[in-house]
């Protein structure tokens, strides 16, 4: 992989990372409908609170407005999008076509994902695609950007799509020992940045980062640590017990439970606020911890269906205001 100092995409995210800033990315989920207002509102909540925001792509295989379309609306609201594309729903033809359009519409960050299996979502009878896997998608986008060729080898006659290319990493999935090798594979395939799955088990993440550093991978790719506020003890339990690839130590469930223990059950708003406050407090502690880990270039705050949380957390963690970036 080339190690150029020049900018590959010119995105704000890329510029900040290359300038050595500790970045903050957020996330927003598009609506299950065809109206643009909801996205605009979410984008306004994120504006100025993060350097760029992921826009999910039929996340958990539930149909929502597309990532690229939503990205256009975000851009109009002044928020830099990170487009997500899964391999589940599109073949290589559709991917190239959609990503060329995304580039033309101003998008410059792309996260390449496998995609949750459609059995998780609301259209389990659909045919899944998986023409390419996420590494092959990255490889294809690198060749479009740097070699100016389509996947078939034909030259791109017009402008080439220039994305800052990202991949996900799950330090907690199995086989645990293979995960750093898989990260190396993703870097070799073209990843410029990585966003990890939600981290709750800090010890296990530190172990993962130790192995990543041993392999020198932290110098070849920008790693953003995924974090997110727990909203209720129920959510903590659910994530601990029911979500594949998620590792939530019991202490988090206990802390969440403790936060509401002294508040009578009828005082619903007070309890909700107490839980949220504790969730935010835990996340802020995590950010402080993560800033100490060598090789972590930023945080990716996933505040699902509570986009205000990104700004609240960023502020409490001392990450605001976000830096200005040069031309």
């Amino acid at each position, binding site marked *: 992989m080339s190690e150029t100092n020049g900018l590959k995409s010119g995105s704000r995210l890329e510029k900040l990372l290359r300038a050595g800033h500790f970045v903050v990315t957020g996330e927003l989920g598009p609506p299950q409908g065809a109206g643009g207002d909801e996205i605009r509102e979410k984008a306004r909540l994120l504006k100025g609170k993060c350097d760029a925001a992921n826009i999910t792509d039929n996340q958990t295989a539930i149909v929502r407005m597309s990532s690229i379309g939503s990205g256009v609306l975000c851009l109009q609201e002044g928020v830099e999008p990170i487009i997500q594309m899964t*391999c*589940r729903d599109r073949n*290589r033809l559709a991917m190239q076509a959609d990503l060329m359009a995304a580039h033309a519409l101003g998008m410059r960050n792309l996260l390449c994902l*496998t*995609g*949750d*299996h459609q*059995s*998780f979502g609301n259209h389990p009878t659909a045919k*899944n695609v*998986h*023409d*390419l*896997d*996420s*590494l*092959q998608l990255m*490889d*294809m986008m690198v060749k479009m950007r740097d070699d100016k060729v389509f*996947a078939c080898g034909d030259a791109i006659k017009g402008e080439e799509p220039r994305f800052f290319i990202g991949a*996900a*990493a*799950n330090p907690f*999935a*199995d*086989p645990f020992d*293979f995960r750093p*090798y*898989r990260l*190396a*594979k993703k870097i*070799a*395939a073209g990843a410029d940045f990585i966003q990890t*799955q939600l981290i709750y088990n800090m010890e296990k993440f530190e172990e993962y980062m130790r192995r990543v550093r041993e392999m020198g991978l932290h110098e070849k790719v920008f790693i953003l640590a995924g974090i997110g506020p727990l909203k209720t003890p129920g959510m903590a339990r659910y994530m601990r017990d029911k979500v*594949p*690839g998620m590792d939530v130590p019991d202490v988090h469930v206990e802390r969440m439970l403790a936060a509401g223990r002294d508040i009578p059950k009828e005082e619903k708003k007070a309890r909700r606020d107490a839980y949220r406050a504790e969730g935010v407090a835990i996340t802020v502690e995590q950010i402080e911890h993560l800033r100490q880990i060598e090789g972590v270039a930023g945080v990716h705050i996933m505040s699902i269906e509570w986009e205000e949380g990104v700004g609240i957390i960023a502020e409490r963690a001392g990450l605001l205001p976000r830096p200005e970036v040069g031309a």
Partner: protein
Amino acid sequence: MIVGEQKPLQEIKELIGDGKKVLVAGCGTCVAVCFAGGEREAEILTSALNLSFQVDGQPKDIEEIMVQRQCEWEYVEPLADKIVEHDVVVSLACGIGVQTLVERFPDTWIVPGLNTTFLGMPQEQGIWVERCQACGNCILAVTGGICPVARCSKQLLNGPCGGSQNGICEVDPDMECAWQLVYDRLSRMGRLDLMVAFQPAKDWSVSRDGGPRKIVRKDLLMLGEAEY
């Protein structure tokens, strides 16, 4: 082998429709071995259908016949006399057998009594598992002998994905993660290099995606008289 499961009785009855004289054709090869469409299953189904239609007040004349292999012309040929006597044939063969019968007996209405499910093997008595997707370009050598096209829910060639936990696929707690198996196998054989290497995009054109496939072996074709 080809593995299948008999369709529910109600569905088979609906497929028979108005047919009065029905022939249930079992197959003695793959579907017999998975106890879905062999001699015993054909007999049992025939009895069940006869009884059920009787109870409905719409008795039909249903009998069974066995074919050793419904996918080969020489084995289906002997059915010729029997078949013309019937309105509907319920074939308990896999989809290949059904279509072979249809091609040989174009004036007979033939319906499938089986759902052909997959290419697989009997892991233990009573349990069959999918193993092959007939993708047309076998890559078992790079995965140590575990097929990611058939056994990975997302057909990844550079797996595993992030949903692998304790060797189990995110789709179902009973489903093994194929890439965990690949990792274990390649580790055991000291060939993890194969899993670290990047697998480029697959050529799906030799798989079903390229259209229905055909093999012509010139060395095996029957020569005409003039060519001797």
